[in-house]
């Protein structure tokens, strides 16, 4: 079952609750919450007139994973999320050079990125986003299906 983060930067008001939630409660690889605060895995960036949310989209063909020279990035089969095995990362910047979403950054000599909040029922950033700029959805049918239903209901009327 694949997870997708739906990002709608137009709704983002820059409050930053997502980054705080990620930093305070993000689950380290292997599950578990309540770990010590760590650098957030997503960033709000003002790019000219637009605001961007740099967060991993857990792509189905992740260019970061292809570029990793140490084999540290791979897709976790059970959750469909793209993960970095930190112990393998050598801090070469190759993945940072690839990601169109700037979803990977450098921290403590290694690359870091969103790990999909492994072990939690829904990603923290989306849970704490007040505007709906970040929403979690299972891909492969549910989110598009809901939208199709809604689109038809609008057309068909009550």
């Amino acid at each position, binding site marked *: 079952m694949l997870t997708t983060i739906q990002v709608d930067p137009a709704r983002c008001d820059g409050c930053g609750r997502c980054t705080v939630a990620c930093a305070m409660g993000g689950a380290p690889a292997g599950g578990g919450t309540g770990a010590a605060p760590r650098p957030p895995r997503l960033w709000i960036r003002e790019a000219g007139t637009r605001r961007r949310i740099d967060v991993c989209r857990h792509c189905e063909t992740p*260019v970061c994973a*292809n*570029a990793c*020279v*140490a*084999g540290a990035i791979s897709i976790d089969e059970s959750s469909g999320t793209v993960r970095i095995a930190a112990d*393998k990362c*050598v*801090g*070469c*910047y*190759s*993945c*940072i*050079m*690839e*990601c*169109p*979403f*700037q979803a*990977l*950054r*450098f921290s403590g000599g290694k690359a870091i990125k969103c790990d999909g909040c492994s072990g939690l029922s829904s990603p923290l950033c989306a849970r704490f986003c007040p505007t709906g700029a970040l929403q979690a959805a299972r891909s492969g049918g549910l989110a598009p299906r809901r939208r199709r239903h809604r689109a038809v209901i609008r057309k068909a009327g009550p």
Partner: protein
Amino acid sequence: MKHYLIAGNSTAGLAAVRALRQHDPRAKITVVSAERHLPYSRVLLTHLIAGHVDAGQLALVEPSFFEQPGLELLAGRQVVQVDPKAKTVTLDDAVTLPYDKLLLATGAGPVIPAGFSTGYPQVTGLRTLEDAALISRHAAAGAKIAVVGGGPVGVKLACALREAGASPELIVSSPRLLSRVADDEAAAMVRRHMSQCGIRIRTTTVIVHLEQSRDGGALITLSDGTSLPCRLVVFCKGVRPHTSMLGGLQPPGAALRVDRWMRTSFEDIYAAGDVAETYEISSRSFCTAATWPHAVEQGRVAAMNMAGLAMAYRGSLNRNAMDILGLPFISIGLVKAPSRGGYDLRIQRNGNSYRKLVYRRGRLVGIQLIGDVREAGFRQAQIRRAAARDIEIESTMCCEEEKHE
């Protein structure tokens, strides 16, 4: 049930095996690997020498990977001959194997000047685990090691040797470092940083004479007249593709040109990785993009096409990312804008950071980043989008003219 044969078990070959397993789970795959090791990352070799990783961390798969049903690994063997008509390959032990589809992912070997390639234990390239082990042994003793070549491999090796406690001498024939992948200012910053870290760098210098010395090391004479005794001389002057298995069907030393579907000019024979020549979108020419992400992508795309899924290759894009003793470096596309008009440069300098964007007719075609490497991936996507709009990547049967019988 299709039988796929993959010659080569490094970056491109492994990516192909993974993609074949995903897209044709029932197929029979035979992999012929000249090296006996499990596939490992050649890019990590400098990190191994520097001490960032140990040898056990280099392998890209678990040993059990090759125990999958339908996957056969012939390690320590080489394909020495290919018969495209009969659709067979012959190995170095005279065994002949048939194939439905063949992928040549045999990579390339280091270019070492004629005369020094054999009989000189003090001379080596840096391609294999064995090369890295030899270099590490000398580095551990704090030895003086000459590194020849100012490209990314030479630069990374010189830095790694410094970190390992050796005494590297970087000998560069060009007037500056990274002459193909960095602009003048970035190259100067890199040189300054490396010199400050204690690496001796000589540009516009070549080795004019090399002889073995009595203590087992080497004595090299440089073009500036200097005599340099050292324990080891490592040539990082590029690589030559391994295409000898095609014999007279292919000019020696020439990479295998492939079309958008990773096909060579021989039917049912594909190529990927350092052995292949692909269309590069920033220079708009065919070349061998001998870097890691290209090998992975080409291996994957070749495999998808071998499995019958028409998946075009999006084209190579020259790019390099590295950490130079704590100084981040990224360059993508055309970073050395020609002096001809039509190019627009946007430069930001901030302390140890240098960021340059190169535009041509309003479109981003290159980016050079030192220090602050943010937005690199975003800019790569921008460069690719601009290139796709500007040019049509021809679905070239470039090989039509060269079709061999």
